[in-house]
């Protein structure tokens, strides 16, 4: 039976298991929208196409399924660029569908024509321009296979208006995608499982560096088995958080620029780093010339292009993580490594006295207290979606995530404005989970139009604005490195409680720690969107901090009234 290209699009999406898409209609995608009404697809109308991509992204991160965003040609497509780049840097599988002007008009600068496949070429895993109705279904199938396979990532499919209106016969069995396999091929220079096992068994001070790949590979159980069997402590990257329970005794916490001091010191003192599904980003290594000089290094990543990119390693293994670890497990020798673990505990003790949680209450509301209370009051069970900046780092430090995919955050691209739309996507993916947005007053104002989307969808969503009246992380850099010259970082905002009222949602402002608990509990009980404006200490900074490019062990520590002399 002949169907239109637009019908083939929805039929293909339904066959891929898609039930919800995030989008915004317009001229060049109208035939697709018209056909959508005939298919069991829930469409979420966003308020800006950037929001659609972040929602698809949040949906994918929270669920592990592929997120789908849809927009029209020209400005609709270009508005997606930030969201696509965000998904690319964090290896998130999303498929973006854009309308395009008729194939005869391509290249003529027609109304709302833009070369979106050219624009998104370096920020997608792959993209397609479809100009014929019969190519729609096979392209969608291939797009999903590309988005999910290997190291996941975003794929864009640009469909001309005539491809949507044209008719075609689809043989669903014949349009199976054909992709090249590269990863199973051993190349000269590849390390072996035996080499990795020998290094682990011989190490006295080994450390696992766990990244996003742990969850992408589904290796959560294997990595814990590895750590427990060989008694190896684990340090987490920002995107790795949740991959290993925060409360596991061998989980040390986050590494890097705002990582725990004991973690960074342990990396510098280790004699073996076992890097699993992470990519030695500059935010976790600091100065590469002085990075972990005493350590041999094993690196496992499904993306061979990540091996020996930033850090030269002794054993480089281009494999899926779960399989790679499973291969090691039987041959690992149990070794209590008492000396190494007690050395790390000693480092922890020094940090505890500086922790803001342990400082005497001086009447001020600190963001770290807010996050810590939020963790306590939600029993650590919420899915937390953060924006980018100081609040993001405090969340990573003070909200203890025990389950995979319970922290959704923009790591690689560091996209402000990510939190609210990504949280809408996460809530659509996991309607039974409690979802909290943790966002600064700057980032919130970038995409707060999506409040209307959340209201229109009737979502039960909680928003925690960490409001310090500054673009806080930039202000912190200005304080530390630009002599406190606050160029363009003080920021005003609306009265967020009145804003909430205007959107028809519940809102409250909090400026004392004593009121945090009641506000959070009320928000949790409230059905629908709720917003709390936490007016926190304005010029607080995130500690510890490794200045960009500095040696990992040379951290700026929180000044401590107890350990005054150690402040460097």
């Amino acid at each position, binding site marked *: 039976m002949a169907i239109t290209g637009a019908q083939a699009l929805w039929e293909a999406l339904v066959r*891929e298991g898609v039930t919800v898409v995030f989008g915004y209609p317009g001229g060049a995608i109208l035939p697709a929208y018209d056909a959508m009404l005939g298919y069991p697809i829930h469409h979420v109308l966003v308020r800006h196409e950037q929001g659609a991509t972040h929602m698809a992204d949040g949906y994918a991160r929270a669920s592990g399924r592929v997120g789908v965003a849809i927009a029209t040609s020209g400005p609709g497509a270009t508005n997606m660029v930030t969201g696509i780049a965000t998904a690319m840097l964090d290896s998130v599988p999303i498929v973006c569908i854009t309308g395009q002007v008729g194939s005869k008009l391509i290249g003529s600068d027609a109304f709302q024509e833009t070369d979106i*496949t*050219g624009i998104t*070429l*370096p920020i997608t*895993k*792959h993209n397609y*321009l479809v100009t014929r109705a019969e190519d729609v279904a096979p392209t969608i*199938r291939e797009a*999903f*296979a*590309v988005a*999910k*396979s*290997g*190291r996941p990532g975003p794929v864009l499919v640009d469909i001309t208006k005539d491809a949507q209106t044209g008719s075609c016969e689809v043989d669903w069995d014949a349009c*199976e*995608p*054909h*992709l*090249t*396999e*590269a*990863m*199973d091929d051993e*190349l*000269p*220079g590849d390390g072996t499982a035996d080499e990795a096992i020998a290094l682990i068994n011989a190490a006295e001070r080994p450390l696992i560096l766990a990244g996003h790949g742990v969850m992408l*590979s589904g290796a959560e159980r294997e990595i814990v088995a590895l750590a427990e069997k060989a008694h190896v402590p684990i340090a987490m990257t920002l995107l790795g958080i949740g991959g290993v329970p925060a409360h596991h005794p061998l989980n040390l916490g986050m590494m890097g620029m705002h990582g725990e001091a004991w973690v960074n010191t342990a990396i510098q003192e280790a004699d073996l780093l076992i890097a699993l599904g992470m990519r030695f980003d500059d935010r976790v290594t600091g100065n590469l010339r002085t990075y972990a000089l005493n350590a041999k290094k094993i690196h496992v990543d*499904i*993306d*061979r*292009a990540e*091996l*020996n*990119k930033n850090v*030269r390693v002794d054993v480089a293994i*281009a*494999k*899926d993580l*779960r*399989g*790679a670890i499973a291969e090691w497990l039987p041959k690992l020798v149990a070794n209590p490594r008492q000396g190494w673990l007690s050395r790390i505990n000693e480092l922890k003790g020094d940090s505890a006295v500086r922790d803001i949680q342990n400082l005497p209450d001086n009447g001020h509301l600190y963001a770290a207290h807010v996050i810590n209370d939020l963790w306590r009051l939600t029993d650590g069970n919420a899915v937390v979606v953060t924006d980018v900046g100081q609040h993001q780092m405090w969340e990573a430090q003070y909200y203890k995530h025990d389950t995979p995919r319970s922290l959704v955050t923009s790591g690689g691209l560091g996209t402000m404005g990510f939190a609210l739309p990504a949280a809408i996507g996460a809530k659509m993916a996991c309607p039974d989970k409690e979802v909290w947005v943790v966002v600064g007053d700057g980032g919130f104002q970038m995409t707060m139009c999506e409040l209307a989307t959340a209201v229109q969808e009737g979502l039960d969503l909680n928003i925690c604005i960490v409001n310090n009246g500054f673009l806080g992380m930039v202000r912190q850099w200005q304080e530390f490195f630009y002599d406190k010259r606050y160029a363009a970082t003080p920021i005003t905002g609306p009265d967020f409680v009145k804003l909430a009222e205007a959107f028809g949602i519940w809102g409250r402002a909090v400026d004392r720690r004593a009121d945090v608990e009641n506000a959070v509990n009320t928000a949790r009980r409230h059905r629908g969107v709720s917003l709390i404006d936490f007016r926190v200490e304005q010029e607080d900074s995130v500690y510890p901090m490794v200045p960009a490019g500095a040696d990992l062990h040379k951290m700026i520590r929180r000044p401590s009234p107890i350990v005054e002399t150690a402040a460097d």
Partner: protein
Amino acid sequence: MTHTFAIYVDNKPGVLNRVASLFRRRAFNIESLTVGHTHEPGMSRMTVVVETDDYGARRLEANLYKLVPVRRVENLSTRPQISRDLALIKVAATGDTRTQVMQLVDVYRARVVDVSPDSLVIEATGTEDKIDSLLEVLRPYGVAEMVRTGLVAMARGTGAADKSAARTSRVAADVQDNLGNYSV
């Protein structure tokens, strides 16, 4: 050092752009690039010469494999190979100098492919060194114009790079569940 890659790609619109864009995006400088058909329908072959170290070459190869239309990549610098460059050189040649130029052409086993009253066009094939050397000896006579194809290269012996068709395998829709269990 210099690395020469043979890259098998689907013959589809925009593929050259994807490959070239990858080199630019990853900050590799292309010394030379040629592209043409292969003996297999629908498959093109690029020869790309890049100046980089062994780590860079390995990363480049891995990145090339991440491009969907790329079917097979061979780093020819790691094995015995034949490489050729083709040049057309228009050189001034009148009266007495014509014979001298033609003798040089013979020495280099090049050919004269066009003659006019005051110039010759010479076709030369060989390694880049040989062409460079011919160019140097012709320069005193006055080189008016030159065009070169850039390097094309192939591994010596049988069965080297030509696994492209066999490298295509089917990926089922449940690809993520089967990670690590691929068979070709």
